[in-house]
């Protein structure tokens, strides 16, 4: 399991409901270029890890990759061929909840062309539509 919390208050959580847009983490803050999520979704720890591997492999130790999402929500499931009931299943994987506008990956220290290619590779690993973004104007 690549990313998950070290300590939690409760082992299992309810699914919950998501609505609205990202009001925080919706701009490039650490690097120079970023990958912005355009849909509401759960991104699994596996997706995030696949994105990280794709970006770092492409960058060859050049530049820096920032991951701005963390999978903090456990998702449980029941084993196969189990009858219904007998309580909630065991946690299977962890997800990050993202809303439209959230910047999930950032890249710094490389040219725009390199960052575009690296983040395009990350976008292919994401379960949702994403777009390439730059830093906002300084005022």
């Amino acid at each position: 399991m690549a990313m998950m919390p070290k300590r939690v208050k409760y082992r299992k959580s309810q699914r919950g409901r998501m609505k609205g847009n990202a009001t925080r983490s919706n701009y490039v803050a650490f690097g120079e270029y970023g990958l912005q999520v355009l849909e509401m979704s759960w991104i699994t720890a596996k997706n995030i890890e696949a994105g990280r591997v794709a970006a770092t492999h492409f960058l060859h130790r050049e530049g820096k990759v920032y991951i701005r999402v963390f999978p903090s929500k456990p998702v449980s499931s029941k084993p196969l061929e189990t009858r219904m009931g007998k309580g909630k299943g065991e946690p299977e994987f962890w997800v990050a909840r993202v809303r439209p506008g959230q910047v999930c990956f950032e890249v710094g220290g490389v040219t725009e062309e390199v960052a575009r290619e690296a983040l395009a590779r990350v976008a292919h690993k994401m379960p949702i539509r994403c777009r390439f973004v730059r830093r906002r104007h300084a005022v």
Partner: protein
Amino acid sequence: MDKTLLLEAQIREHTGSKAAARVRKQGQIPGIVYGHKQDPVAILLNAHDFSEGLHHGHRLMDITVGGKTEKMIVKELQYDHLGRNIVHVDLMRVDVTEAVRVSVPIELKGTAKGTHEGGIVEQHASQLEIECLVTNMPESIVVSVKELGVGQAIHAGEVALPEGVTLVSPPEMLLAACHVVAAAKTTEELEAETPVAPEVIGEKKEEPAESGE
């Protein structure tokens, strides 16, 4: 900054979110003008002209409001949730003889010495706060990283600023550093480091049963 942009603004009579949304659909940006102890004025700017001006580095603008042209600087910009469009702008009246505090972007120039030794240059700050005359406002602060070796850093206090510009940001603020990046961990290495399940806060751990003799 010797660039100024001349824009025409209309006085906005209807305020509020509904009226603002209506004017945005018509290709205008709602904004507000304040400063110089005068009453704030709600205005409307052409979205295309204003955005083009910003893209070309204009921060100081000559704006005509109600037949009177005044110099103004862009004080704050508000974006939509995707950061695509500007939804509101704050403009502050300024005088050409007046010193203003502004944030300007930092531009790293050159190839660092340390990059030939396997290091990378990491930019830690993207903006620098400065104080200068409105007419002396630089578009960006160029920082040369040519002499930056591995393990070295550049702080705000070490940057050569243009004449008439004083630093407001703390001089010890880290701008850029060159360091060697450790090889990225593989998925297997990360998996080996992380436990199978997280620790539950407040849960009593089961103590191993003592073996009977």
